[in-house]
């Protein structure tokens, strides 16, 4: 008997804030990725924790939180969380899968600030990355 796939977690906008547009874009990106990629949906369902995505050249950031059955995007950076930071243009191309986050970090175009294990950060990097089959190139 075929296993029933659990539905992808929902993606919701959380607390309002200065980066309302960035939060809406990231939410739309994650929503589309989870709909297209069962493996990303699985990772999002299992992951717990929060990270901050910071466009440091704009001083704007959002908080992405993995919760039970949903991913929440707040329109401001919450303090004390792991941070993936860099210029907006680099952040955008990495999020959209046009560039590898590891190579961007290795080239110091993006940097990670975290004291704790990076499970939420790794989950976010995977969930944000556009699956190869999706969209036009």
């Amino acid at each position, binding site marked *: 008997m075929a296993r029933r796939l659990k539905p992808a977690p929902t993606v919701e906008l959380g607390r309002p804030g200065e980066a309302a*547009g960035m*939060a*809406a874009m990231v939410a739309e990106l994650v929503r589309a990725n989870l709909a297209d990629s069962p493996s990303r949906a699985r990772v999002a369902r299992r992951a717990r924790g929060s990270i901050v995505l910071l466009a440091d050249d704009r001083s*704007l950031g959002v908080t992405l939180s993995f919760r039970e059955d949903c991913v929440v995007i707040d329109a401001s950076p919450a303090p004390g969380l792991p941070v993936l930071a860099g210029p907006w243009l680099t952040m955008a*191309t990495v999020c*959209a*899968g*046009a560039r590898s986050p590891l190579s961007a970090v290795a080239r110091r175009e993006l940097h990670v600030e975290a004291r704790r294990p990076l499970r939420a950060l790794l989950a976010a990097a995977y969930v944000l990355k*556009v699956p190869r089959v999706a969209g036009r*190139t």
Partner: protein
Amino acid sequence: MPDIYTTEWYDSVRDAINAGVSRLRSVPEGRFVVAVEVVGDGISPYVATDATRRFLMEIDDGTCLWYRELAAHEDERAHHEGRIDYRFRGPATVFDEIAAGLLDPVDVALRGAVTVKGDMRLLLRNAEHVASLLAAYTSAVSTTWPLGRPPYASDASDAPADASSHNATGGAGGDAPADHREATARA
């Protein structure tokens, strides 16, 4: 120098976009139609309160083929039968200030003052191209402002102190007729 929102101005924006695109390392393949909706906010003199000015442009392999304004009740499908790939919508004063070089369009989008609808994945993937399009709109066209140049009297306090240096058309509000400045102040 063309007046804002005239055919000559749209042509200049299109030419500026295409000049900018020619300098990019890569451009997105395919054809995209973009709609821009500039909503009257009672401050900008270029859009009546509660009215909306609508523009369409078509991009093909990174090049802007055409850029035009729609009449008040004109159907978008009169110009384009397929779907609109991206839709930008925001208050007229924000768009005016972007065109005058007072606001950074990327900042405006990230802060949500202008909303963006469409395939975010494609938009983010082509962020460099989008930045080039917006730069053309912002700084590559010398624009004249027959009804007064932003920042307008009622939002002048929000404008950066060196606003006039960003635009080729003179000082902040300097070319606004006195009666118009008064009208916008009342608004």
